[in-house]
Each structure stands twice: as structure tokens, then as C-alpha cells.
């Protein structure tokens, strides 16, 4: 029989959020994660700054190139490093969100206070996301500051706007992985198992998926390609498969934002080339339009995974 419950599901959300945020910021785990990020982020930034100091071109988006330049010494750009590291941070923050409460036997005591489970799960998610945001903003400011000091030119307004949008996309990307990590923390009672599963998903998307998607495409694609339309269809199917990975969505969004000359994230059609000046940057709003599906995809993924965790958590028994 349907019986509606009374009271706001957000009762107690504030205290849960504040506690999670404070716990994360003061935890040793957070220190380790920050160290990780700084080490992995510093190398690409330092080397790309070295390269950029020799460039003199007032029209190029020099600040954005700090993020995207793939220098020869390191072979990886700052954004590519983030693509890889943000999931790790989010998993680190979320893999034991719920099951550790269970194992410490605090879950039933906390839930016997006047709050719904909604507030606990959402508070933990937002606490983790805020922590991630603080770390990413700090990192972003460090990179920007280093750029200012070493390049000696201030960033232009549009570069700041693109940089800030990049930050928002990075946080949304972190949110997806935080939701995945929390989903496993709800499913598995053992923190080790949930960490392992979350890391497994991460490795799957970064190592296995590109090859798996390629193999899938071969088996799904028509055996012979007769026209340009066939070719385009196969191309877009391949892209669609790749875009199931949050990492792909993130890197495409970053490409659109930080490389303003990007006109399309799929195959370039002749119609899109008409009247275009090769290498000319797109206006900011056009770049945002270009990557809008990717950003929506990331946010939708975050919501879907969080909703799954929510449904499972509501059905879980609190008793030991």
C-alpha cells in the first residue's frame, strides 16, 4: 500500500555535508591525494611552461596552452593527466562513504536521528564533491599563478572564462566518478571490495574500453562501405561507443574549451568547412555550444549513477 512519508528529505543535509567536508579536508587521505595531483599535474605544467616561454604570438591562447600542451619531455598534457587522476581522487574520496559507516556501526545510530537516508547519501556526495572542487580550484589557481609568474603576461578575459568553464567540467567529471565510487560503497559491505570494483571500472574505461569499442565497431559495422554516408554512420557509431566512457566526454569537452580552434568533435564534414578560416578560433559561446552535449552527458551520468546508489541504499537493511 502506498503510504507517503512526512518531513523534508533534506532535513539534516547541512550537518552531514559539513561533517563530511571537514572530515575529508582534515584526513590524511586528502593529503595523499593532493600530493598525487600536484606531482602528476606539476610535471606537464612545468614542461609546457618551459616550451611556452619561447613562443611569441599575441593572438594565440597562450594561457590555455599551459593546460593542453603536450611537451616532448613528458608526453602528456596537464588535462590528459587530469583525465586520468580525477577519477582516482574521486574514488579515493568515495569508495568507503557508506560501508565504512556500516562497519564502524555508526550507520544505525546516525539514522536513528531525525534524518532520512536521502540526506545522509546526498550530504556525503556533496561533501565529497566540495572537497574535489576545493582541490581542483587550488590546482587551477596554482597553474594560473605559475603561468603569470613565468610567462609575464596576464590572461585575457576570454581565457579566464574558458579556464573557469574547464574547471566546472572537471568538477562534473569528478562527480561522475564520485557517484560510481559511492555506488560500490553502497553495494559492498567491504571497503576493500568496493575500492577494487571502482578501480576496476576506472581501468576498464581507460585501458580496455578503447580496444573493446574498436572490436565492437568492427562486429557491428556493415561489411562493406559503399558511400560516404555509410562511412559517416560507422564513424559516428564508433564515437558513440567511445563516448560511453566518461573520460572521452571529459577530453572532448576540454578540447572544445581549451583549444578554441576546435570546430567539431566528430568527423569534419565539407559543409562545416565552408567559409571557415583554418585555425581561426571559435567564439566562446560557440565553443560552449559545441561541448554542451558532453557536459550534459557527464551531469546525466552523475545523476543516473547517484540515483542507482540511492535506490539500493534505501532498500538496504541497517542492521548488522
Amino acid at each position, binding site marked *: 500500500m502506498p503510504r*507517503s512519508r*512526512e*518531513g523534508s528529505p533534506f*532535513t539534516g543535509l*547541512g550537518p552531514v555535508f559539513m561533517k563530511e567536508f571537514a572530515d575529508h579536508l582534515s584526513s590524511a587521505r586528502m593529503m595523499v591525494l593532493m600530493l598525487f595531483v600536484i606531482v602528476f599535474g606539476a610535471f606537464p605544467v612545468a614542461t609546457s611552461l618551459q616550451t611556452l616561454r619561447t613562443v611569441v604570438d599575441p593572438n594565440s591562447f597562450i594561457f590555455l596552452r599551459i593546460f593542453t600542451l603536450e611537451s616532448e619531455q613528458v608526453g602528456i598534457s596537464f588535462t590528459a593527466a587530469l583525465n586520468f587522476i580525477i577519477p582516482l581522487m574521486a574514488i579515493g574520496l568515495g569508495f568507503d562513504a557508506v560501508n565504512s559507516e556500516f562497519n564502524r556501526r*555508526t550507520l544505525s*545510530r546516525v539514522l*536513528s536521528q531525525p*534524518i532520512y537516508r536521502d540526506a545522509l547519501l546526498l550530504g556525503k556526495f556533496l561533501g565529497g564533491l566540495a572537497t574535489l572542487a576545493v582541490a581542483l580550484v587550488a590546482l587551477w589557481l596554482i597553474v594560473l599563478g605559475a603561468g603569470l609568474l613565468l610567462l609575464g603576461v596576464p590572461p585575457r578575459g576570454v581565457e579566464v572564462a574558458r579556464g573557469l568553464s574547464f574547471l566546472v567540467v572537471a568538477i562534473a567529471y569528478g562527480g561522475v566518478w564520485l557517484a560510481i565510487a559511492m555506488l560500490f560503497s553502497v553495494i559492498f559491505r567491504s571497503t576493500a571490495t568496493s575500492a577494487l570494483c571502482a578501480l576496476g571500472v576506472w581501468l576498464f574505461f581507460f585501458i580496455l574500453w578503447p580496444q573493446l569499442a574498436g572490436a565492437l565497431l568492427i562486429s557491428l559495422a556493415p561489411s562493406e562501405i559503399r558511400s560516404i554516408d555509410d562511412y559517416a554512420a560507422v564513424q559516428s557509431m564508433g564515437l558513440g561507443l567511445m563516448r560511453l566512457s566518461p573520460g572521452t566526454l571529459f577530453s572532448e569537452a576540454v578540447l572544445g574549451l581549451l583549444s578554441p580552434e576546435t570546430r567539431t568533435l566528430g568527423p569534419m564534414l565539407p559543409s562545416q568547412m565552408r567559409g571557415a578560416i583554418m585555425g581561426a578560433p571559435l567564439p566562446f559561446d560557440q565553443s560552449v555550444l559545441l561541448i554542451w552535449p558532453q557536459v550534459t552527458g557527464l551531469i546525466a551520468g552523475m545523476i543516473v549513477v547517484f540515483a542507482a546508489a540511492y535506490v539500493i541504499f534505501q532498500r538496504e537493511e*541497517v542492521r548488522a
Partner: protein
Amino acid sequence: MADNVIEVRGLLKLYGAQRAVNAIDLDIRRGEIFGLLGPNGAGKTTTILMLLGLTETSGGTVNVLGFDPVRQPLEVKRRVGYLPDAVGFYDHLTARENLVYTARLLDIPRRQIDGRILEAMKSVKLDDVIDKRVSTFSRGMRQRLGIAEIVMKQAEVAILDEPTSGLDPHATFELLEMIRGLKKSGVAVLLSSHLLDRVQSVCDRVALFNKGNVALMGTVVELANQVLGAGHPLQVEASGIDVATTLNGIEGVQTVRQESDGSWRIVADRDVRAAVAQRIVSAGGALTRLADLQPSLEEVYTRYFQEARRAA
């Protein structure tokens, strides 16, 4: 009845086809200590969780302080304190920080938080370790911190799940004192346990759980009458005579059974101690002990489950 803080009618919990709680009725009165007894898996904890709205019910109605835990869990949880079996706290926080978190969840006004925490910690004699991390606390101290949480909450009903399990005798004694303290301050206490003699010493009424049913409910004396039969059991220790034959014919004596060498157990329908003593002494026996046996919950419990098993 306005005097009941908890009213349960036909409460049902199904796990698949299994009836974990099978249509039970319970009434907890204002200001009493009520014990839920029974073996593990009898449905005690499930019942408690349903009272708090932490588990869905499969049928029946529950009324806690005028609220329905299924539909109004926040109202119930605001007024009811819960101490789970082997309660946990955040080890990396101090006792005070743990309670501050609870106080925030309870939305206690900020100005009152400090005072209420200090008062609660004093009432469980933990005020000297208030700023120590909970990781340094013993099991008994954690249980007491759990009581402090209930005191701070100013709950009208306290539900304690196995509060004394795993505690040493001294810690158990202290905890029971605190439970009596809760009662003194007007809180109705519902506790579950299988430490029977301890429960007997604090509970006003008990309910005996068996396979999801409330097998027996009432005061300890009432249960004893139901299970052990009405009557006054006596223990007699004497030497020099055969007590069984000597006591033959005393009015009121129902059975005389030798329990061991020189020790007999007598059941009578009234207090026959004076007559028994006189008969033994006049028969030339040396009477060394004559005791009125208080019905013990342990005995009730053991006997009940023996009979339940025999009946099965």
C-alpha cells in the same frame, strides 16, 4: 490508552516466506523499563528497528508517542533515543565532537549544545574524558556515551538493543544504574537482552520472544506463575532425616523432590515455612537452610524453551 508511549498491534515482518516478526502486540507504558527477551534471531532487533522506522513493516500498526514510524519517522526519531547493539562512534573525533554532530542533526539550538552535552556527559560520568578521542574508549565507555547521546537528546523513550552485551560485571552494573537513572528522569526504556538476571533486576515488565512471537508478557512474577505454575517453591537443606517422608501430610505441600544429597525442593500452594521447620526439628533433623525461592527469569526462560522444544 494515553499512558502508553508505544503501542504495537499485529506487527508483522516478512523476509520472503519467513515470518521474522509474526503479528505481535506490545504496549510500553510511560516511565517503565520494559525488557524484550529471547534467543538470537527471535525478532527482537527487527521489532526495535520497525519501532524506529528504520525497517519497513510488512503489516500491522505501530504508534510511538502518537506518531506512525512508517509515515512520520522524523517525528518519532526526534523523540526516541536509540542505542544500537555494539554502538559505534567516529573514532577520529572526540566524544564531544561526536555529540556535537548528533546535536546538529537534531537541530538543537547552537547556544544550548555545549550545556546539554556537558550535562549529559556528567550524567554518565564521562565528563573527564569529553575531549578524548573515542578510539581510546573501552566498550563500556562507548555504551555510556550512547546513553549520554540519549540524555542530550532529551528523549521521551529510550530503546536499548543489548546494552550490556560484552561488558564486564562492573561496567554492566554501572550501565544498569544509568538505565535506572533514565527511568527516574521519566524516560520509558525498552531494552532487549539475553542477560536474564541483569534484566530481571531493572525491568518492570518483560516480553519473552520466541520465533517472532511474543510468547509471554508481564512482570517477572506473573511469568513465573504462568510457566512454573503458581505456588511457593522452597529449598530445604537438612541432615539426619529423610525430609520427603517427614513432610508428608503438611497441609499445602504439593511436591517434595530431592535435588541432591541433603537438599530438597518443595512446592506448596502457600507459605509453609513455619510448619516445615517445626516438623523437621521435631523429627530430630538438623535444619541448615530453609529458603523461599524467588522465581528467577532464568528459570522461566529455560523452562519455557524446554517445554516449547518438547511441544515442537
